[in-house]
């Protein structure tokens, strides 16, 4: 629709359009684009938040590469991400297959598994902290006691930190994945299964050759959003494992991850330049993951 309207006419015609876009664009530029550029700049500086930022080139990134705590944080994050996404996706799919019917039992089960998704996340973290209370007043240790074991210091045993974080994440997230998978299952035409049955295909073969391939878009979404969310974990570490500002990562940094470390460097040590460099490492990781997920091309074609 490229009509040769003179400039003044175009302004009159499109002025309202731009005025309607303005609030969004102004906020978008002011609190996203500009801060993004600024954080890139800050990542090349030494900045304590009070004195002006001093340009130091790639120093922060060089330092990060040899920062044992950061490497530890990355390793922890990798373990946590793999554990929570693999387990979470498998259980989401399993739950969806088990409870995708319309009967009351299925509906109640779906609600039970979905409950954490609508509960305050801080409340859930405080709840876990209380369940994992080190003495026998905690639920976990009461069960250990029933089984004849001795009370476990759940939150003070470094080897248990990542497994507990994975467990909390899977427990809290599988209901959400289940809902997506249930919706995906509902969009598979029943005729496929009927045809397969006529051909004498077993339940397993139907699952393997119809269900699983047709669920691939859902799986991609569950996995990629799961990865992105897992890389950004903060509250679980901060609420459940941190004891004040000095041990942000739990005992021996056993739960230290990217965002908690970013917070630690930026807001307890006021190394805002260094923290910005960490933020950009996080950005690059998530950017790559998002490229896989977001089909920018398709969205653009639709426009």
């Amino acid at each position, binding site marked *: 629709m490229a009509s040769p309207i003179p400039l003044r006419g175009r302004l009159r015609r499109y002025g309202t359009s731009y005025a*309607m876009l303005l*609030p969004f664009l102004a906020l978008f530029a002011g609190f996203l684009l500009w801060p*993004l550029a600024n954080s890139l700049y800050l990542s090349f500086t030494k900045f304590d938040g009070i004195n002006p930022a001093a340009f130091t080139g790639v120093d922060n990134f060089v330092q990060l590469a040899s920062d044992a705590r950061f490497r530890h944080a990355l390793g922890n994050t990798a373990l946590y991400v793999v554990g929570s996404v693999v387990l979470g996706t498998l259980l989401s799919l399993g739950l969806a297959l088990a409870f995708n019917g319309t009967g009351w039992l299925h509906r109640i089960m779906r609600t039970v598994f979905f409950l954490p998704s609508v*509960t305050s996340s801080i*409340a859930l973290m405080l709840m876990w902290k209380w369940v994992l209370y080190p003495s026998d*007043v905690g639920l976990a240790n009461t069960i250990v006691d029933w089984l004849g074991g001795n009370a476990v210091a759940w939150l003070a045993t470094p080897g248990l930190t990542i497994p507990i974080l994975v467990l909390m994440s899977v427990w809290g997230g599988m209901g959400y994945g289940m809902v997506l998978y249930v919706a995906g299952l509902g969009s598979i035409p029943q005729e496929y299964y009927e045809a397969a049955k006529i051909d004498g295909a077993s339940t397993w073969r139907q699952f393997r050759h119809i269900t699983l391939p047709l669920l691939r878009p859902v799986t991609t*979404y569950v996995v990629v959003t799961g990865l992105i969310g897992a890389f950004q974990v903060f*509250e679980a570490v901060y609420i459940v494992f941190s004891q004040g500002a000095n041990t942000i990562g739990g005992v021996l940094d056993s739960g230290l991850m990217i965002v908690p470390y970013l917070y630690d460097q930026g807001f307890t040590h006021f190394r805002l330049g260094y923290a910005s460099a960490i933020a950009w490492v996080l950005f690059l990781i998530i950017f790559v993951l998002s490229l896989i997920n977001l089909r920018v091309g398709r969205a653009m074609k639709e426009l």
Partner: protein
Amino acid sequence: MAVAPMDTIAPVQQSPHSKDTGGGRRARINGHLLRLPFYLLALTMIAPFYWLLITVFKPPRELARTPPSFVPESPTFANFYDPEWSAQAINPGHLQGIFQRYQVDFGFWRFMFNSIVITTSITVGSLLICSLAAYVIAKHDIKGRRTIFLLIIASMMVPWQTTLIPNYVIMRNLGWLDSYAAYIVPALAKAFVLFFLVQFLQSIPNELIQAARVDGAGEWRIWWRIVLPLLRPALAAMSIFIVLAEWNNFLWPLIIVQSDEMANIPVALARLNSYFGGPDHQGAIMAGGLLASVPTIVFFLIFQKYFTKGIALSGLKG
């Protein structure tokens, strides 16, 4: 914390793997046997919630006891409000309920109020701003809209923590730290919401809008009178995402909030948790957690249909 079954999650079809269709009783029993691990898993879903719920109604003495009781033996509301408590007591923090714990006016109500103000403003504000922009991008033939839309889509790949430090500096320079503005203003332009609304609007025929233009309606009027009502299901789905995210927002408030008065519920609870760790105080802390969860659970119950539709839409369209 009983939540009604989610009627709307289920697509109308039966499970392809459900044995209920043909096999009769034995197959049905087999189906339940196959699901047995999941029934056990459901128990582990409920147990922590049950633990939270009974903790809320136990007095401190019962909370510190081993082995713990599984039904409150002397149930009490004192974890919410303790009529016995007085500031002159020897150990004032000991029995105090959640509404009495904070040294701010109105105690816990203050944080409820903060959270409600913040969540409501962000939800209404961002839906208005994003729907305006989405209307232009989806239905106006202006120069540069492809570029703008591409930029907005690209920005969805930015984890918000990347802009955390500069945004904190901006808030400080504006003198907004510790204010509602710091909560609300940076949270208004939501790329995902705009993206979702644009996609939704593209599926709506242009004729409706053209007809209104022919009738002489202005663009603002069309947006308010035609576009917003058409967008209602999409707005409902998005409002649920926004409400849940903002109600639970923690890291950003943790950074911008200094005084006790301006804390939202998550920050208030985190502070309470770091001041009082022992079992004596768990009753009050859990009472706070329960109160923090009630609004989102109620909201979910009311908007269930849109909720699951929104999840499915955003998930499956990719």
